[in-house]
């Protein structure tokens, strides 16, 4: 019996367009990614309705117990390093403070006073949006 011509084998999907798309995505992520510095300890920033975007600068981490970490440095060394970094540069972005929401408010007030003594006049507190 004749069944006409055999159905044509479907052509294999060509890979080239897919590679193009994948490369595009790769380049997109490469450009947009800011490799997040790893946190020295778990920090849950306070919730706020503030919507100003943070300016990028190396964050000063404040734990729930009030410990300070800036880069590799801790407490007094961190404040000293921030102080010397501030003296060497003009037009620096505000210092980013990434503090835990459970840290005492007084610790933050004391920290701000210490930072002001170290030459930091502008700082920003990182917050997360209220869900």
């Amino acid at each position, binding site marked *: 019996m004749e069944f006409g011509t055999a159905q044509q084998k479907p052509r294999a999907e060509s890979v080239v367009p897919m590679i193009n798309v994948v490369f595009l995505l790769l380049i997109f992520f490469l450009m947009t990614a800011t490799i997040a510095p790893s946190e020295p300890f778990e920090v849950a920033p306070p919730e706020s309705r*503030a919507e100003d975007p943070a300016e990028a600068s190396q964050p000063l981490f404040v734990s729930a117990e009030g410990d300070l970490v800036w880069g590799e440095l801790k407490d007094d060394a961190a404040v000293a390093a921030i102080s010397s970094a501030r003296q060497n540069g003009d037009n620096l972005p505000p210092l980013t403070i990434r503090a835990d929401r459970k840290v*005492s*408010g*007084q610790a933050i007030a004391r920290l*701000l006073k210490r930072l002001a003594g170290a030459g930091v006049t502008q*700082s*920003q*507190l990182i917050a997360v949006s209220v869900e």
Partner: protein
Amino acid sequence: MIDVVFLLLVFFMLAARFGLDNAIPLSPAMAGGGTYEGAPRLITVGRDAVRLNGSVVAPEDLTDKLVALMPSTDAIVVLRAEEDATLQELVDVMDRLSAAGIQRVVVAE
């Protein structure tokens, strides 16, 4: 090569932190110019109560009472945390103030 590219793609997708964080500008008590004008405006944040110039106020009434004490909306307001107040409670009060258009909040020790 495709495998490697896919791997990189997945890595960057997972490692990327999208969107910038929100920021609250903070100023310490001694920074910034300007002089203090008008009636005293000291907000004390405690664990269970917010006090304006020493008397307890309901959080909803805080901004109304505060605005009445302010010569203009860009006057300075002093915010003080008590020993047992957490940063979250401080930020909640700051949120209320900024919602009422009060821009210059100074955190004092």
